[in-house]
């Protein structure tokens, strides 16, 4: 079985989280940053039973068929949501062929899927190793934008009221965390202590979410009404280089993160499909990508089904410990 380290898993998952933040739709404010960070810490608390179970040797491979099917559905649905988010966010990122109508959009999705097939074919270990490099470059870009925003932007922007509550932002944070289905799967691949891994990942996620959303609120707070994707606009407008926007540089980072995020879902789906449908021996990854792309073409982005997405995330985190608890309860009754 492929084994990955905790930093590799954290890199894989954080890339997906940053991509989901980039595709965040609607107004953001200081409360959004607090809500997402608090949501990440709540997710850590909810993930601890799962991590402890994995430390005791129980992974999704040992779960019942129903649990594996539910996880597979969550992973495929989130993959579809990623394609939907990519489709919507593409309208504000200058992609040369995207403006060519339907052909452009299909070409963008098709290219991402094609590269994902290539990336996923080498296995989760190769994906995880390269993710550390991609995450490092992404962290450098985030740091550049943050420093530039701190120097040039108006800090009063963060205090502008946005008419939002902590509960609403917690829900949005959970809805944007659909990658936790694949986290549940990939935790079984960890060579290190799983509890430490969960603590590392969710802590980094809380800090990163707060920093990115806070920076976006500072840069775009005054013009939020005319922006659809404030995090994307913040990256484009922070202007670390004089005179010109950083659209091209941002496009490269955005594309790489899109590929990694989808590839992680495809790899997790491939693994679950191998366990759940043993008769399906070939083209599991390609089939998973086709299903995700098809779902992405028809489903709306998660911002339009926040509660359902948040519920799916909770289910993905809690289903394995819930099944273990039920099975343990049944065995105790049988012994009694």
């Amino acid at each position, binding site marked *: 079985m492929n084994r990955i380290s905790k930093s590799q898993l954290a890199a894989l998952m954080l890339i997906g989280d940053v991509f989901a933040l980039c595709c965040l739709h609607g107004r953001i404010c200081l409360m959004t940053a607090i809500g997402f960070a608090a949501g990440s810490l709540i997710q850590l608390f909810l993930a601890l039973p799962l991590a402890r179970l994995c430390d005791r040797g129980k992974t999704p491979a040992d779960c019942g068929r129903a649990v594996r099917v539910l996880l597979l559905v969550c992973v495929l649905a989130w993959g579809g949501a990623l394609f939907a988010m990519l489709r919507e966010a593409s309208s504000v990122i200058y992609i040369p062929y995207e403006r060519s109508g339907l052909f452009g959009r299909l070409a963008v999705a098709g290219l991402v899927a094609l590269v994902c097939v290539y990336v996923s074919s080498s296995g989760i270990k190769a994906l995880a190793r390269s993710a550390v490099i991609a995450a490092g470059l992404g962290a450098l870009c985030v740091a550049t934008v943050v420093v530039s925003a701190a120097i040039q932007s108006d800090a009063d922007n963060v205090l502008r009221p946005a008419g939002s509550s902590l509960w609403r932002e917690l829900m949005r944070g959970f809805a944007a965390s659909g990658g936790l289905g694949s986290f549940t799967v990939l935790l079984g691949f960890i060579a290190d202590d799983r509890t430490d891994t969960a603590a590392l990942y969710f802590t980094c996620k809380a800090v990163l979410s707060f920093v990115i959303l806070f920076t976006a609120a500072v840069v775009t707070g005054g*013009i*939020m009404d005319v922006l659809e994707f404030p995090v994307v606009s913040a990256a484009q407008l922070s202007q670390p280089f004089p005179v010109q*926007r950083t659209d091209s540089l941002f496009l490269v980072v955005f594309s790489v993160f899109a590929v990694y995020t989808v590839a992680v879902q495809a790899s997790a789906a491939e693994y679950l499909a191998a366990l759940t449908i043993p008769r399906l021996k070939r083209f599991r990854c390609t089939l998973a990508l086709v299903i995700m792309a098809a779902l992405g073409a028809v489903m709306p982005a998660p911002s339009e089904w926040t509660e359902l997405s948040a519920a799916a995330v909770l289910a993905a985190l809690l289903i394995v410990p819930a099944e273990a608890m039920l099975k343990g309860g049944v065995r105790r009754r049988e012994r009694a």
Partner: protein
Amino acid sequence: MKGLRFVPALMAAGLLTGCASDGNVSDKSYLRAAVIGADSVTMSFFSEEDEPVTVSADSPEEARSAAELSGGKKIFTGYTELVILDGCDSADTLGFMLNEWKVSPSCIVACPRGSGAELLSTRTAEELEGAVRVAQEQELLGRCDIVTVLGGLLGRDGAAEVPELSRDGYVGKKSIQ
């Protein structure tokens, strides 16, 4: 057979090189400054070969299309340094500039004293921008970049302060709504 694994990567790399994209630098006119009026737009460009052009249009995008037809070159707006608002809807126009024309966030927003089209034909964009920057250095004027001005227009007061320009350069500040 293992070599086939590299085929998708090579294809993707070929598609992503941008070789089939937007052509040479000399095929485009690079917009430096624009005067947006209620029913006309005046544009001046970085290259001295591209003369300032005034077109009648109800929107900046119509104006761009008309100017491209007139000049015979596509107009790239990403380097725009100065936007002069001369009777148009300020917030809508600046929002359009930021989202559709993708102008630089440091693009200066100003208003004319008199006719904006005449102003751009008598003074160069470089001179007008220079006047604004000197006024800022002398602390006669605060920030007047497009993000700051648009933020003021969309804020609680619905107003923002911009420099007022004439053929004498910077002549004062004006509040726009």
